[in-house]
């Protein structure tokens, strides 16, 4: 991938974030305070974690609709295991549940050859149903103080969940950008057959991406339970769509082969900032989803029309009579 163009796609999310932030700084005095910025990051950390996992799956040309349901499932599992087996086992149970669910998704997609949309739609339904069954629909309270610290503690004045997000972003960002596995993810997502013919373990790569998605949902799951002090069975409802939105705003192509973790995290922060700003501006919460939808459309519009927009911008500089409107095909075969 051309470094510069890859960067430009990620940058788009940065510009949009800066733009929204600038508007909010002007519009409300409450926005640009450290406590408010911290609150934004804290709220966005859950979506960002889900979205990081989703990034791997989407670069592979798939989609994981079950991340929200996995979050609910894992947080309930953690909360239920915690009082019996202690902190470590509780966390491991949550992570294991996420990894297991991801593994099943991965196997359904690769071995059973199901489209990921359908396989993960089914697991969304199964997992959220299972979560409700296990809890009889009631929240599961957690009392362990040590566990609560994961959600409410602070290190150097910054809430723990933000640290966890940072660590995950660096670890998984590096994994994607620098490791052999990352190369295999991009190549497989770009052209599955070509990756297969190059001797890449394409099946394993796909399964691994779904497992990563599940593990990150597990992490997000216990953070949420720790922060709220209870595991809500329906906590993850609809979060998969926010996570997918963050990935797309972050410049990852739904067609696969292109994207990065940085953009995804910024995309999640942008969505969080918009939520926060609309709250501060007293906009009806019902309208917030409308605004978020518009942001997604705008991001994708810019992505699709980057060429023509540049041409229009250029034609203001030197006016060419009857400037050609290039489409994808009109790039000469040179």
């Amino acid at each position, binding site marked *: *991938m*051309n*470094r510069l*163009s890859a960067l430009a796609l990620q940058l788009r999310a940065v510009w949009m974030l800066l733009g929204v932030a600038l508007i909010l700084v002007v519009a409300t005095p409450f926005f640009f305070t450290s406590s408010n910025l911290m609150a934004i990051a804290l709220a966005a950390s859950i979506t960002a974690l889900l979205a990081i996992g989703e990034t791997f799956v989407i670069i592979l040309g798939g989609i994981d609709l079950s991340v929200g349901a996995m979050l609910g499932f894992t947080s309930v599992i953690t909360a239920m295991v915690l009082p019996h087996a202690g902190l470590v086992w509780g966390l491991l149970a949550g992570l294991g549940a996420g990894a297991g669910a991801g593994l099943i998704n991965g196997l359904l997609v690769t071995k059973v050859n199901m489209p990921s949309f359908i396989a993960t739609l089914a697991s969304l339904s199964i997992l959220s149903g299972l979560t409700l069954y296990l809890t009889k629909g009631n929240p599961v309270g957690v009392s362990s103080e040590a566990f609560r610290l994961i959600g409410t503690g602070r290190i150097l004045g910054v809430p723990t969940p933000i640290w966890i997000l940072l660590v995950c972003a660096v670890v998984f960002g590096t994994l994607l950008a*620098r*490791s*052999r*596995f*990352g*190369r*295999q993810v*991009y*190549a497989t997502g*770009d*052209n599955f*057959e*070509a*990756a*297969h*013919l*190059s*001797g*890449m*373990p394409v099946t394993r790569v796909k399964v691994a991406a779904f497992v990563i998605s599940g593990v990150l949902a597990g992490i997000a799951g216990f953070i949420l339970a720790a922060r709220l002090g209870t595991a809500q069975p329906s906590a993850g409802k609809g979060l998969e769509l926010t996570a997918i939105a963050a990935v797309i705003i972050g410049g990852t*192509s739904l067609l696969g*082969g*292109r994207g990065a973790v940085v953009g995804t995290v910024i995309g999640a922060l942008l969505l969080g900032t918009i939520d926060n700003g609309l709250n501060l501006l007293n906009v009806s919460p019902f309208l917030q989803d409308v605004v978020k939808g518009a942001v997604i459309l705008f991001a994708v519009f810019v992505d699709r029309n980057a060429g023509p927009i540049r*041409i229009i911008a250029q034609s203001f500089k030197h006016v060419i009579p*009857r400037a*050609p409107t*290039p489409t994808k095909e*009109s*790039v*000469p*075969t*040179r």
Partner: protein
Amino acid sequence: MQLKLRGIRKQFGENEVLKGIDLTVNGGEVTALLGENGAGKSTLARVISGAYPANEGTVEIDGSRVSFHKPQDAMKAGIQVIYQEFRHNLFPQLSVAENLYAGDRSGRHGRLWSNRVRMQKDADEVLKSLGMSMSPRALVRDLSVPQQQMLAIAKAIGEDASLVIFDEPTAALDQAESEALFVQVRRLREEGVAIVYISHRLTEVFGLADRLVVLRDGVVALETTPAASSEREVVQAMVGRPVENFYPKEHNGTDHTVLQLRGLCSAGRFSDVDLQVHAGEVVGIGGVQGCGKGSLLRSLYGLLPVTGGEVQLDGAAFRPTTPRAAIASGICYLTPDRQNEGLAVQQSVARNISMATLDAITSGGMVNAKAEQARGEKMRAALDIKARSVNQPVSALSGGNQQKVLLGRWLMTNPKILLMEEPTRGVDVGAKAEIYRVINEQTSRGVAIVLVSSDLPELVEMSDRVIVMREGRVVAELAGNDTTQESVLHHALESAAS
């Protein structure tokens, strides 16, 4: 019909592709358009067909000026194009008949509801009159690539065309299918249709065309007739400099057997194939499309199941299972379909080159990006890959340079055996020469090459030995002076003739 182009210019942004083309095409004549990739042939075809508006210049039909703003305008004037990417113009989920009449506005096959019975009957007649044997009910996605191409051609010429442009029509066809196509082209010419024929294959152009027009860098470099010219002169005009022997074959064969097949079978594809390939040797495999030559390579690479017989690599038994195992044993496979199973086109040149050899530059799971870049640069220099940088996505490169990237990926593995299928398909003259040079260089190092090609001159000239397959079996082995295009064809088609 007579089509006259005067001073056609076309540019994309800064890049001027056509720099003032004057061209006249007459009815009842085949005008061949030749040139390297990027010379402007396809762009010119698109200007004629109304797909691209020209920036300057005029188009006249029978003396009156016309200007097409979209392909439909040109179609109304009787201009039809069969594009290189003909599959884009077919509907894979629809039947042959439905595809044939997709653009039919006459209402003969129904307006609101289609009259399938009549459509299939008409389609059947059209197909029969063109000598094509396919069911009008078959779904297009189930057709083979050559069949799809023939359908695209039938669709184009069925619509009362007075000018037909063929853009690389034989790229996906084998010899027999190409012959069938030539019959159609000649028939159209008899009917007075004007034909523009774009092709890289000089032999077929010399056999078919009445006039030759060579484009180079967006201008007409040579205009001549086959009788008044030679292949050598045309190639010179294409590349802009005198060329040495076009097939610079070096014989590097040794006695050491690298690959030995005994009675190899793959059920339903080929059977009882015996083959010996020596180090430094190029063994060509000839035969018509579907004779099993491609399947043989894919089986050796672990892509298709081997159902019987044995393979020996350097004297040791080898069972092809997966591409990964094949690569580890020193076998590489250059696919004929570089778009669909060759390159990851959104990824950079450097990444594509290292795709099959990541392990060597990985430590602790992390890829050494510097080494990856360095390898890319090395291959770019070694194969003369024309790219602004090794960080450019492969999609930005021309067909020939993409092919070199793919070849570079396999050279990185230091293969013992290189299985090549259509190594020069859709590749310009310059890149072709480069690929032949690589073949010589590799064989001189003792690499054994199995070459499958439907480009007969290439197959015959670049191989030390040629085996011919027919209906899944080896029917002839030709060496030395017996290796001629005629003898390959003869053995490939024998049963069809008898």
